[in-house]
């Protein structure tokens, strides 16, 4: 199953390496990873998406991450109410005669044109990874010249459903 994990770390050189190295050593495949500063100085936040088949393995992953000296907090927020966003840049073949058709396709996605040339247009689209998938699927037939995605970043919403599931150790 797909898990969304956020990790708050002290911003020191080598921290990202430490965390990804741990995942590699324990054979977790990272689907996406984003890192950036938080509101606090010297602190960064990472968001991982990993595929893990059983619950014990995910519990183990969280505990192993927590063991790292530079890691302040680890949260598996998969089952929580969360906001999750990703940004993608897509360069699509778009000769003048299809431009208006393209515009009507991208509009529901609230994608924006951030660069355009004679035959290509670059769109920026933000949203959940699913929304971005859908967008890419839709423009694919026109011919994608280049695609870059940032990976998802996320945190929990202010208001949570009651009875959010917890790790077995905390029950």
């Amino acid at each position, binding site marked *: 199953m797909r898990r969304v994990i956020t990790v708050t770390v002290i911003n020191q050189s080598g921290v990202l390496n430490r965390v990804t190295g741990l995942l590699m050593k324990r054979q977790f495949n990272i689907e996406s990873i984003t890192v950036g500063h938080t509101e606090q100085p010297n602190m960064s936040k990472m968001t991982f998406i990993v595929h893990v088949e059983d619950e014990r393995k995910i*519990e183990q992953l969280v*505990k192993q991450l927590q*063991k*790292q000296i530079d890691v302040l907090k680890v949260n598996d927020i998969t089952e929580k109410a969360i906001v999750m966003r990703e940004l993608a840049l897509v360069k699509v073949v778009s000769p003048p005669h299809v431009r208006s058709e393209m515009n009507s396709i991208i509009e529901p996605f609230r994608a924006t044109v951030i660069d355009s040339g004679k035959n290509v247009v670059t769109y920026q689209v933000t949203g959940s990874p699913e929304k971005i998938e859908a967008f890419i699927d839709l423009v694919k037939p026109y011919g994608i010249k280049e695609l870059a995605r940032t990976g998802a970043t996320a945190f929990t919403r202010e208001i949570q459903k009651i009875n959010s599931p917890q790790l077995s150790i905390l029950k």
Partner: protein
Amino acid sequence: MEMTLEPMEQQGIQPMDGSAVLIQGLKDQGVEVIFGYPGGAVLPIYDALYKDPIPHVLARHEQGAIHAAEGYARVSGKTGVVIATSGPGATNLVTGITDAMMDSLPLVVFTGQVASTVIGTDAFQEADIVGITQPITKHNYQVQKVEDLPRIIKEAFHIASTGRRGPVVVDIPKDISTKMFVTAEERNAEVNLPGYQPTTTPNYLQIQKAAEAIAVAKKPLILAGAGVLHGQAMEELKTLVEKNRIPVTNTLLGLGSIEGSHELFLGMAGMHGTYTANMAISECDVLLNIGARFDDRLTGNLNMFAPNAKVIHIDIDPAEIGKNVPTEIPIVADSKEALKALLNQEFEAPDTGEWLTYLNGLTKEAPLWYNLDEHELLPQEAIQMIHRITEGNAIVTTDVGQHQMWAAQYYSLNNPDHWVTSGGLGTMGFGFPAAIGAQIAKPEARVVAIVGDGGFQMTAQELSLLQEMRIPVKVVILNNCALGMVRQWQQTFYDERYSQSLIPVQPDFVKLAEAYDIKGYRVSKKEDAEKIFKEALLSDEPVLIDCRVKMLENVYPMVAPGKGLNEMIGVKRG
């Protein structure tokens, strides 16, 4: 320059360079011995050590230095300190660092690094030791600014010696160790690690649940691991065992946490454990694991491990709980604190009479055994002889393999800090240098390194240390002219195809010892063994005994890989 230094001197703070700060930092930590090997990148540090000495043990290979530090840490309970140079010096430490990580031994390892100006250019003797050691350390550092050095030293010792202990590497670029360093503020830096707060106090409700589970158990069993030794919880363990009449078994690394002769001790469990201990695990209804990590050499096939048991697991490392074996009652805590809390609970001792009678019956029915040979000395006999002569009071160190298992089976320990073995990593070449470190930690003790002919040759150069320092370690080579455990597995699982495991031509170990000015003995005839062992082991000098033992002897009983603990082979019923 003088202008800036003056105010510091008024405060009584002398300006120092990074190396002097390091030596001072080690002294502040109470470091009484350093194991190391100099080289280009640590020349300034060794120069500082020349001016302001701390006793230093010059091993003949960095691997020897770090295994000695591990032996020292295991026996003294203090943090072992190692210094090596950059590049090859540092990479030679990798085996020992991993070994310490696997067996939770506290080490602080200082490696030299090329100057910061050339880091990353593949400079002479450069290796990315921080990258290399990341997965095999509890934590590691590269010092980027000399001002950080005092804080990093304090943090390194704090991390290595608290919580679940382990190795910490501090990589120091050469220019950092020569940079001047003056401010008082930085030298007084406090340890502040918000991401590292080990839990030592147990959760009260979980302790209560554990007590309730034990009270109603019909077949309770305690599995005591190295965590009992690290937490110094031997007294509490004994009280719990005796007060409630609960039988107890040990992991390989937990040996010594209760006396080997205790009436409630079932022997070691696991791949080469006793039949009784393994059957007790297979049949118990409550399994109280204290400070063991359910290693696969202990559990055998997990699907068949303790199938009827409610598992209570006390461990200081939360990540160990539930990692391999599902746990009903997890208790994250220091072993001593957890056991104290458990002993404070008022609960009725379970009625274990029938259970103990049954287990005693198993021991009588299927004890450890070997077939005596008319002509050849058996390794098991040799270990029993060492036990007799040293009255079970020697510090025993081993490598990995057959000799290790026989020592675990037949050297019944009286003391908790007298067993030094490479468990998790299973490191050949560990036992001999570890014995040197153990002897340095306890100069009065009798230290016997029981090693195989294969492992000994991996670190034999450290004989030079016995010679130089007259360290009275007794090296006993159980020489079967083979990599014994490899050969045993090839015999059992590969139809006797002994691929590269037999070493019929050996060096003359007695002459080798003599080359280092150490008395060498050879036991080649069974009838001479006792006399030679007595003379050698009771001597005050370093000695080496090349003990020729039966070549094709196997370690039994055994749980074959993939099998359950209840499926032991090589069990002989009397």
